[in-house]
């Protein structure tokens, strides 16, 4: 399996698939967060200069809060992600797919102090590259996972093709493959679709033939398998 999918079983007995985010996605998210923090600090520094001593003090406190608590505040919010992560469609969840708990968020962000060593998040990068689930040290310790947020896929509707009864009995696996092909049909080029349909031509009794007419009939079989009869 090439996918880096992490399976999380729910108490209802179904398996949720989590897609851990790799180093590049997380790096971009981090970079964006870093720029946001920099912008806030820069903006506040201008205000702080006018306020004098107290202003500078608040600025130093802000620096501290942004360094340690910026991620915690956002991770515990509704989206479970900092603005950077949200922009790149990432999200922090627990290992088992549940929303992150305050204790876990606190831990994973404090352990950042270890990830940062020896310089430039060295240990975090090594850890993310070595692990299939791309966890940094803080994620390992807090049992959290940064995942790609499931995207709402556009609803696929099968092309209206006249249903054709298959000429032979089909195993459930073959049926699933045909239906999957039909669902993918709109995203494929005509030539590629013909090639793929030619592989399955035996279901409509067209072995050895290829072309748009064969493709039409193969897709028709898929319609039949989906349950359409007219």
């Amino acid at each position, binding site marked *: 399996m090439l996918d880096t999918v992490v399976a999380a079983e729910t108490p209802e007995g179904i398996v949720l698939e989590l897609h851990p985010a790799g180093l590049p996605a997380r790096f971009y998210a981090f970079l964006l967060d870093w720029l946001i923090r920099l912008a806030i600090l820069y903006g506040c520094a201008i205000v702080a200069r006018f306020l004098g001593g107290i202003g500078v003090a608040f600025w130093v*406190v802000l620096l501290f809060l942004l360094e340690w608590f910026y991620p915690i505040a956002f991770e515990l919010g509704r989206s479970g992600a900092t603005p950077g992560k949200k922009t790149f469609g990432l999200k922090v969840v627990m290992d088992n797919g549940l929303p992150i708990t*305050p204790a876990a968020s606190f831990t994973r962000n404090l352990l950042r102090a270890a990830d940062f060593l020896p310089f430039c998040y060295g240990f975090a990068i090594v850890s993310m590259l070595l692990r299939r689930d791309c966890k940094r040290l803080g994620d390992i310790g807090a049992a959290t996972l940064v995942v790609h947020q499931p995207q709402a896929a556009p609803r696929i509707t099968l092309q209206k093709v006249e249903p054709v009864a298959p000429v032979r009995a089909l195993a459930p696996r073959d049926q699933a493959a045909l239906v999957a092909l039909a669902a993918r049909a709109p995203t494929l080029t005509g030539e590629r679709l013909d090639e793929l349909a030619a592989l399955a031509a035996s279901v409509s009794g067209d072995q050895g033939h290829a072309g748009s007419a064969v493709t039409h009939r193969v897709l028709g079989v898929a319609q039949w398998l989906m349950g359409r009869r007219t």
Partner: protein
Amino acid sequence: MTPLRFEELYQAEWQELECLLDRLLGRKKNAAKDGAPVDGQRVAVLYRRACEHLALARARSYPAYLLDQLERLTSDAHQVIYQRREFGLAKVKRFLTEEFPRSVRAHSTYVWVAAALLYVPTFVIGWLVYQRPELILSVVSAETAASYERMYSDSAVAIGRAAESDWLMFGYYISHNIGIAFQCFAGGLFAGIGTLFYLIYNGASAGAIGGYLTERGHAATFYSFIVTHSAFELTAIVLCGAAGLRIGHSLVAPGRLSRVQSLVKATGDSAVIVSGAAAMLLIAAAIEAFWSSAGWLPHPVKFSVASACWIGVLSYLAFQGRRAD
């Protein structure tokens, strides 16, 4: 059952669940507006049904678009149904009156070891520097030593700093001291060696400065400055160190768990201690900035308040929440 028939039968339920989720998550602006509260029981029922449908659809190898739809629906609902609301004053109160002090007592061995690692170097190095004050020069430069002496001399208006505002020092103490404590904790990930280093290093450097200033005759000013906030600050650093040691120990000797399982368990336990310690460090920073530095307060007042703080902190950790243990 064919996929189309399946979809036709249950589509209405999925759409209802989707609508409820949209409202709960506030995903659609117009959906959130109508005020009727969402029926939680209905969400739970629909969620369980959707799980059932997903399992069926997978077992029957239904087309990918159906599986996708159901997977997204169930994972969204899963997040909503199993979310934990852990905020609120009741939670904070429970944390302060029970969880934190109990967790500290449950890890008392680590706390004692961390205390030894911090205080033994403090006193050893402090005594050495007191005996031979020139040793301070192997720790800090001559100018730094001189500036320490200036800061803690009896004539200083505000003790312990180069005459900047209280607020500025408050900010500095927060970012500096809490940073040290968090490093003591995170250092535990390196089999505890990071924690050992930070505890011993900070203990030794504090000892060197203390020993030097005592020898130079600034004892009264120096100790009256540090004694109050150190009740919170040093104790919090010890606690963070204890949490770091707990993590390190869990990695070195995981027992019957795998190393990762053991680490997760240890961080879960120690997160309680570290968050308590972070609160203590905030108190310490406030005291250090506004109380400890006030040069006009007579020393007896400072020392009596300090002893009250030390007794308060230690007995809080030792006795709070014991009755219900």
